[in-house]
């Protein structure tokens, strides 16, 4: 194999793929990137076995071929190279030579045959999806997925594709985020995706691109003209989130998001490190905050709000609430309640976007 590539194209390809390379691995070849020649240039691929990323960049091919090269070393070298074309060649299964200007490097790679093959996914039946809409879904929901290992299913983000919409749902059992965007989707499909893969997708595909998404046996592939991402799917079924979304919350508060956030942050200063417990009392016209943490102190605050319904006093993990508010796209937010032990909802208020966004938060028990 032998090819010439511009320093910038090499750096671009490495920047896209390197994040998929695991920092620690028991399988040595996973620390390497697979570099193969194609009709248009070279394809660089990396994987941690759960997620695989691959991207194609332009290059001048002299001799076609493929080899794996230590990812970290190659990236470090590429970063330091002078501004000159880079010649890369391999001899035999393992030897790699890189020349650029007067610099010359010899690296030890591993044969291509040792690199895991990518999941077999047929893109001919792929669904075409606007990348921007997908990114919006990911951004607003995947933060809510669980990081705890006891229920692997909640470690994933549910992605529902319907003929006229796409929906993503994520929850850790304490709070939930759900968003749907109207798109011409495809046939009804439910997928559960690791957030780590969604992160790569969000990072790699520009918003204006159109993506092809196709499903293999237990993998999912995303493809744009130059880049593809493959991920393992988490096996379902996902818990019935629809039943737990309250439909009869009869108390409604409208709050100024910025003021609400700053009050919550003030209260958090004296909230417990572990539970961030705060107490909120909603009354007509006024929201009262109270925190009391043994060994630390107490705090109170007030915020004028618009409120309808009987007064309610309810406890929350302030960190959860702050986190949700960070993703709400509007200046005003709408919270609804039924009872202090029931789920409350937090939604954008006055959002002109055609998307629907709902977050849900389970309360913390209050003691009197």
């Amino acid at each position, binding site marked *: 194999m032998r090819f010439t590539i511009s320093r910038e194209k090499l750096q671009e390809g490495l920047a896209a793929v390197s994040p998929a390379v695991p920092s620690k691995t028991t399988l040595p070849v996973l620390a390497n990137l697979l570099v193969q020649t194609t009709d248009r240039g070279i394809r660089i691929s990396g994987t941690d076995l759960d997620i695989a990323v691959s991207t194609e960049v332009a290059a001048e091919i002299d001799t076609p071929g493929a080899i794996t090269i230590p990812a970290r070393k190659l990236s470090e070298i590429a970063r330091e190279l002078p501004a000159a074309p880079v010649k890369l060649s391999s001899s035999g299964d393992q030897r790699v030579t890189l020349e650029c200007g007067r610099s010359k490097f010899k690296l030890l790679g591993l044969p291509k045959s040792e690199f895991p093959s990518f999941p077999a996914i047929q893109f001919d039946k792929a669904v075409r999806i606007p990348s921007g809409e997908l990114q919006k879904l990911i951004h607003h929901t995947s933060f809510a997925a669980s990081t705890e290992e006891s229920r692997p299913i909640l470690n994933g983000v549910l992605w529902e594709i319907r003929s006229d919409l796409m929906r993503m749902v994520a929850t850790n059992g*304490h709070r939930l985020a759900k968003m749907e965007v109207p798109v011409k989707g495809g046939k009804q499909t439910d997928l559960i995706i690791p957030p780590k893969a969604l992160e790569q997708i969000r990072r790699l595909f520009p918003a204006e691109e159109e993506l092809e998404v196709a499903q293999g046996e237990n993998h999912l592939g995303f493809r744009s003209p130059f880049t593809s991402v493959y991920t393992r799917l988490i096996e379902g079924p996902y818990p019935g989130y629809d039943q737990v979304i309250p439909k009869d919350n009869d108390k409604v508060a409208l709050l100024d998001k910025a003021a609400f956030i700053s009050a919550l942050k003030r209260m958090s200063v004296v909230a417990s490190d*572990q539970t961030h417990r705060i107490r909120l009392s909603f009354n007509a016209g006024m929201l009262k905050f109270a925190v009391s943490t043994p060994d630390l102190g107490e705090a109170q605050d007030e915020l004028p709000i618009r409120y309808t319904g009987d007064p309610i006093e309810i406890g929350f993990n302030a960190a959860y609430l702050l986190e949700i508010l960070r993703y709400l796209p509007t200046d005003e937010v709408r919270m609804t309640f039924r009872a202090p032990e029931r789920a409350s909802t937090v939604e954008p208020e006055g959002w002109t976007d055609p998307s629907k966004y709902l977050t849900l938060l389970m309360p913390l028990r209050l003691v009197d």
Partner: protein
Amino acid sequence: MSAPRIAVLPGAVADQIAAGEVIERPASVVKELVENALDAGATAIHVDVMEGGRALIRVSDDGSGMDAVNAPVAIARHATSKIRAAADLVGVASYGFRGEALPAIASVSRLAIETAPAHGAGTRVVVHAGAPAVVTEAARRQGTTVTVESLFANAPARQRFLKGARAEWRAIIDALTIVALIRRDVRLTVTHDGKEQLALPTASGLRERVGALWGHTVAERLVAVDDVAGPIRVAGLVERPADVGTASRRVFLSVNGRAIRDAGIVRAAEAAYRSAIPSGVRPSLLLDITLPVADVDVNVHPAKTEVRFADRWTLERAVERAVRRALGTEDAEASLGARSWWQAPAATPAPLGREVEPSALIETPAPTPLFAQSDDAPTPVDGEPEIVVPPLVQLRRTFLMFERDDAVVLIDQHSAHERVLYERFLGEFERGDAASQALLFPLTLHLSPAEAEAFEQAAAFIRGVGYQVESFGGSALLVHAVPTPHPRFDAERCLRETLAALTGDRAAASHGKHERLIATMACKAAIKAGEALRVDEMNALFVALARTTLPAHDVHGRATVVQLGWDEIERRFGRR
């Protein structure tokens, strides 16, 4: 029948009755005589005992002695050189002050006093069973020798209550041990039936005296206590939690230099061990308490082993705190030194401290957003002493290791986390304010009959730590809300494992010993050995552990922190 005549008892009878209070057995005689010697300023005391004290008790001292005028007066009732008026009783500094002991002893024995205020001219006073004294001259060196023979020979009722010579000797040695512990500055030698039993040179401190009494291994294993709370100072030695129950228990308390017995203080000291030792065993405690003389009343009982305190509550809290602090320090574990295991020595240049993200491990997932900046996470305020976390390394996914200038320190991650959670759960349980996060999808647990029974027994405490549980006909539980002690916490598994553990531990559940139940729960909730920890988690655990009251021990009383001194390591490498 005619009315009984009221009569004044002859002095000898009154003395005999009074003697019953002070002089119950040979050991009481020894105690009184030795205290007199100490009051006379003796620096060396020699005690000879024959046949458990019934045949002979002789106490010789090198104290001030008495002159020919005072020696006979010593055996008169309420004759004392130590106080003059009742007001002097407040804060009395001598051991004796009632002027009762010698007359009481004289009334039930053959008593001989040989004494000299200076070398040469001495006096000998002999009294037989309360009869008038015979006074003669006797030359001797400065000091006093009091000899008591035929104890209780004229008091058959009392004699009948005496135990065998061995038992009486035990009691004597116990009394002498107390003296030895109080007055480390005095040389004490003791023989029984002609054989040397104790030979204690003057000691510079309690640990040295304990070494001379019970051996140096015993002495070295005790942890030093030294704490001052307001006007109260508590010092001494207590047993390491890990050793409690392995050797005979020794308890010694002194208040302002006077040995006392006080169940309340012992209880307070033991409370400091709470959860660090298995239930049912009790620690050895040797504590010297110093407090303003006006706050103690020593004249409660003639034997003077009980005292009254003006403010018992404050005193007991001071004792508990002192012991707790001692156990929380490193020397409860390994090497000696009063500083906490986590504190860098003052001499070291500031270690490569790290910013600690307290959310790891001890907080509910301070949401790490996948894609957004997390810069608006609230910064916690910190009123406590700053804990600088040294660079930590995880070994075998089990231990956290760091270096200090004097040692390599290892922390058992599970034990440490268990200790952290135990104190947290216990606090929440006792305050009744456990946090309980409601669940979107309630958990269902199916229980075996034994587990269902364990649940019934322990339901109150399970709820008390934050589980909201509904029971369905005993065999199924519906969990609506759970505690959230740390991000890796698996509420379902913790509840399951706790119930499983309780089925094997009926006593824990049925006796409502919430501490034990909570210890079980903390054990199940804690991270386990074998879990890889991130740096921020290790740091957070380090800080949380340093803030516990007993960081050096887990809830089973095992070590949480172990240190390998550099001396030891250097020795192994032949560098020393």
